[in-house]
């Protein structure tokens, strides 16, 4: 395989930026944001250079590796810290650094009033570096480092405005949910190491053929758990909505274009595992299908523009996961949707940020309305993203989403029909809630608060939106022209036989467009023909109420995970504090450090500890009789 010495610069540049900005402190306040943007842009430059190098090589010679250093060597176990840039990772590298740089530029203006802007850029750079490490690592262990790194950076970024308690809570929730997913990843790594003996992509790919299906299924399921955590998929989806508390550029970067798509990357990267483990693959499809409906339904009831977009992200990633679960036919389409989604969703998030910027940080869409006239650029760029997500030809989503729907229909048998119907239904609901967002925000009568003075955002903000809008318009066409992306990625995946076609592409497109038309029409009838209340109406159907409650996801988590956990902890604490001797209150007294401590001693404090030791020893002896 080709080696290169320059891969490391992709990661090193933003990492250097973060280090300088954090170490320089307030001294860097004047130029910190410029340095941050420059570092991200340079990394994008390196990415473009790598792409040009890659294009100049033949298909087989395209992947490049770089060994950084020997990382862990314990006994027979060796892991090098190494990077791998192949056809898949270059897509991500360009997306991360490209969209990342645009968002850096946007943030210069968006965060200009924040006196901690430098720190914000440091975190952004840190995030870019970690995300690049995630997609460039050549083994699951290296990926894991990036995986934790983006977790940390996103945690810092979501909680950036941590003056408000709700924001800190949100970042905590994001952390906890992600931790469960991370556990899945560490389990997957351990199982892979135990059964296959290596954790590198190359090594596992080589040995996957003669590894038992049981082991591969276990690894696959654990990887899926990891993916659900990071990509906000069912059942670990609850954190995404709350994470919207962070600054809007963060939502655009992390919660639309990059980090949340890491799960899709993980599954696509692990294609050799999922292809050999049909059960795990089926689970992937199921998770994707459930989430795409789940997210779409939540989206219909949200009045907070960012939460509506977050729900939509959840749903769109559901499409990608579903695509990735369809096996070799689906991987490339999942990635294509991921790329187009990166453009249009990031664009819409930035648009939402621009609206909030003009509206005193108001996020409730019921208090918007008629903004089209005051923010023409935002309206147009947001509108192009809207057309793209709906899948209206020739915008980006038309190419990528239709391909997933089509592949779903053609995946064979009843499964194919169910998946096809689900994806079609999702497309219809998407059209409904996105139209709702458009109508509530940009058309109709104004329902603003008295002190709102909407205005268009400055050029540094609308320029990135415009560039992303160009992507929303053209990326689908460019990527699918002559199957460009499919052919580009083909060498990485197992070749697959031809599937019989259940429905011709033209029929699928027709059906999808029909669903979209219905969704748009319903939204028009409901929100454009009638007055929109500035306050969310209370006398709504039980379904709306449930949807507003995020389909009860929090209550579910609380009942299933939190309560039993709290009970267990408090029970254990009680046992510990009242070891054997119920009269012991000494712990608190010791903490107080007052004269009552001596009473604590006399009341048999030590005695009860000693009794515990005695009982422990007795148990050991008792255990011996069992052993003998």
């Amino acid at each position, binding site marked *: 395989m080709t080696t290169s010495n320059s891969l490391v610069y992709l990661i090193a540049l933003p990492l250097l930026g973060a280090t300088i900005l954090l170490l320089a402190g307030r001294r860097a306040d004047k130029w910190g944001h410029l340095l941050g943007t420059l570092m991200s842009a340079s990394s994008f430059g390196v990415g473009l250079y790598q792409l040009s190098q890659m294009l100049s090589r033949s298909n087989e010679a395209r992947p490049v590796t770089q060994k950084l*250093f020997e*990382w*862990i*060597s*314990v*006994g*027979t*176990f060796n892991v090098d810290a190494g990077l791998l840039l192949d056809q898949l990772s270059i897509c991500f590298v360009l997306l991360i650094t490209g969209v990342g740089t645009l968002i850096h530029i946007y943030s210069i203006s968006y965060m200009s009033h924040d006196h901690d802007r430098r720190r914000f850029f440091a975190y952004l750079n840190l995030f870019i570096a970690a995300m690049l490490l995630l997609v460039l690592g050549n083994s699951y262990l290296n990926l*894991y*480092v990036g995986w*934790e*790194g983006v977790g940390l950076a996103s945690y810092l970024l979501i*909680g950036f405005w*941590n*003056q408000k*308690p709700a924001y*800190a809570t949100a*970042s*905590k929730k994001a*952390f*906890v949910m992600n*931790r*469960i997913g*991370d*556990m899945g990843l*560490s*389990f997957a790594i*351990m199982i892979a*190491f*135990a059964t296959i003996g290596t954790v590198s992509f190359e090594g596992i790919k080589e040995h996957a053929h003669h590894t038992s299906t049981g082991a591969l299924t276990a690894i696959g399921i654990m990887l899926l758990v990891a993916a659900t955590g990071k990509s906000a998929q069912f059942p670990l989806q609850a954190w995404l909505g709350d994470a919207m508390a962070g600054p809007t550029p963060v939502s655009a970067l992390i919660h639309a274009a990059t980090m949340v798509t890491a799960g899709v990357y993980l599954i696509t990267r692990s294609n050799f595992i999922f292809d050999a483990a049909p059960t795990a693959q089926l689970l992937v499809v199921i998770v994707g299908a459930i989430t795409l409906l789940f997210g779409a339904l939540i989206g219909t009831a949200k009045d907070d523009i960012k939460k509506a977009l977050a729900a939509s992200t959840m749903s769109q990633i559901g499409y990608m996961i579903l695509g990735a679960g369809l096996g070799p036919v689906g991987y490339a389409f999942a990635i294509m949707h991921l790329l187009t989604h990166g453009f249009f969703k990031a664009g819409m998030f930035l648009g939402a940020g621009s609206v909030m910027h003009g509206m005193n940080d108001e996020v409730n869409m019921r208090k918007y309305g008629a903004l089209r006239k005051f923010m023409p650029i935002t309206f147009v760029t947001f509108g192009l993203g809207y057309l793209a997500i709906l899948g209206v030809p020739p915008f980006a989503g038309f190419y990528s989403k239709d391909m997933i729907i089509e592949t779903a229909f053609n995946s064979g048998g009843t499964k194919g029909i169910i998946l096809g119907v689900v994806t079609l239904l999702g497309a219809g609901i998407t059209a409904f809630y996105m139209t709702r967002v458009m109508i509530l925000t940009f058309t109709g009568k104004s329902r603003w608060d008295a002190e709102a003075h909407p205005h268009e955002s400055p050029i540094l903000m609308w320029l990135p939106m415009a560039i992303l809008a160009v992507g929303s318009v053209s990326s689908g066409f460019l990527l699918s022209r002559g199957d460009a992306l499919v052919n580009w990625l083909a060498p990485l995946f197992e070749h697959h036989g031809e599937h019989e076609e259940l429905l011709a592409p033209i029929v699928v497109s027709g059906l999808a467009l029909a669903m979209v038309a219905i969704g748009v029409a319903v939204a028009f009838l409901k929100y454009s023909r009638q007055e929109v209340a500035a306050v969310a109406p209370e006398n709504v159907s039980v379904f709306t109420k449930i949807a507003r409650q995020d389909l009860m996801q929090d209550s579910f988590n609380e009942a299933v995970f939190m309560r039993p956990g709290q009970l*267990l*902890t408090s029970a*254990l*604490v009680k046992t*510990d504090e009242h*070891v054997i001797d119920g009269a012991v209150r000494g*712990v608190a007294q*010791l*903490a107080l*450090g*007052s*004269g009552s*401590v*001596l009473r604590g*001693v006399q009341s048999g*404090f*030590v005695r009860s*500890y*000693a009794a*515990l*030791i005695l*009982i422990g*020893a007795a*148990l*050991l*002896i008792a*255990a*011996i009789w069992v*052993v*003998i």
Partner: protein
Amino acid sequence: MEFTTPVLNYTLLSPILILLGAALISVLVEAFVSKALRPITQLSITLGALVLALVQVWRIRNEQSLTAAMGSVIIDGPAVLMQASILIISIISVFLIADTEHFTALAASLPGSDEERQAVQSGNQVTEVYPLTLFAVSGMLLFPISSDLITLFVALEMLSLPLYLMAGLSRRRRLASQESALKYFLLGAFSSAFFLFGAAFLYGYSASVTFAGIRDAVVGSGGNDVFLLIGISFLSVGLLFKVGAVPFHAWSPDVYQGSPTPVTAFMAAATKVAAFGAMLRIYYTSFANAQWSWTPMLTVIAIVTMVFGSLVAIAQRDVKRMLAYSSIAHAGFLLTGVIALNKAGLEASIFYLFAYGIATVGGFAIVTLVRDAAGEVTDLNRWKGLGKRSPWVATAFAGFLLSFAGIPLTSGFIGKFSIFSAAYESGAKSVVIAGVLSSAIAAFFYIRVIVLMFFTDPVEDGTSVEIPSALTSLSVIFAMIVTIALGVFPAPVLNLISDLATFIR
């Protein structure tokens, strides 16, 4: 009666001898040097002796000997690694101990008495903590190299007795400190009795007190198995008490909380290395062939210890108690290295012990810095918003916590990963699964503190961060560098350990 002149290899024993010599000098200094010169003299002697001992350890790193002290001690690779770890940890702990602010002016006085007040007013600060430290460290150096049960017991007492006293030296909350010292002493004596009882049974089983003799008896399976099993169990009670494994852990939260924080740091880090060093040696050599008998026992204890430690730590409101429960959980993780019973397990354990010890000293060093008018502030609620007031201190603490949690790019991750994979390789799957699960739980409370420091508003209650003294800063910076370096480039250290870590018998 014939009396053989003992033959001692002074070079190989020199690290211990240097420390004992320095400790005796230090006692004399305490008695005869004027109070103005005393602190600096004591500090110089202590640090000088520790550094010299470390140099000696480095020089003998490739030596192997069974007869350095008439067969009572073994010098081999693991011995050298353990001793070096203990010395490095001790040096950075002494940096913290050098801050006399933590220690009572006159330990012999009654708390709150006139005598105490006079001592404080006259500035007559006693510095007996230095000789005590030196005695404790020499015991710790002897503990993992002992090769018979008698030496092992002597070393155990040698390291324990000074620690009991040191626990009672706190300047603030003297009653709590003295109580914890007494408690530690009583329970320590109790567990020592179990230890001796176990030693007696092992002698009854093998008719020998040397590790080699016990090993031969186990291999030949000549003796009475019941004696062997009771012996192993009771000996383990003594050792498990020292490392703070459940159900022999009850002392550690109280003692950690009551002791002066620098002593807690020293105790938590160095004692763990010494005790696990001895434990690894005896299990890996003497008891290796009786694996069937003790693996189930240790597996259960390891699982209970890590799950219990991690869960209870979640509910703690005091930073020192939280670190105590975290140290209990870590004792559980370290036990998986004993259970692994393979070379990888030994290497991983040594790495883990060093990494954990250094991070622990660093963590407690930070605790010494957060104070109000009445001394250290250990109530976690008052650590809120520390990240805003003192970003560097809070960041360093966060770094140590992340290492405890085993997040990649810290030494803790490499330690956990290697110790778990070693145990997995040896087939101890249940303990590894419990380990991964409880380290996931443990991450919650470490992160909770990080959230508290960075994402919560500060409370105005007079809590402030002391400007660290040069030595304390040095200790924190060194610990931070080691924690990061061992996470990013662990290979040189892992290779060094791998070259040396083989027990000779």
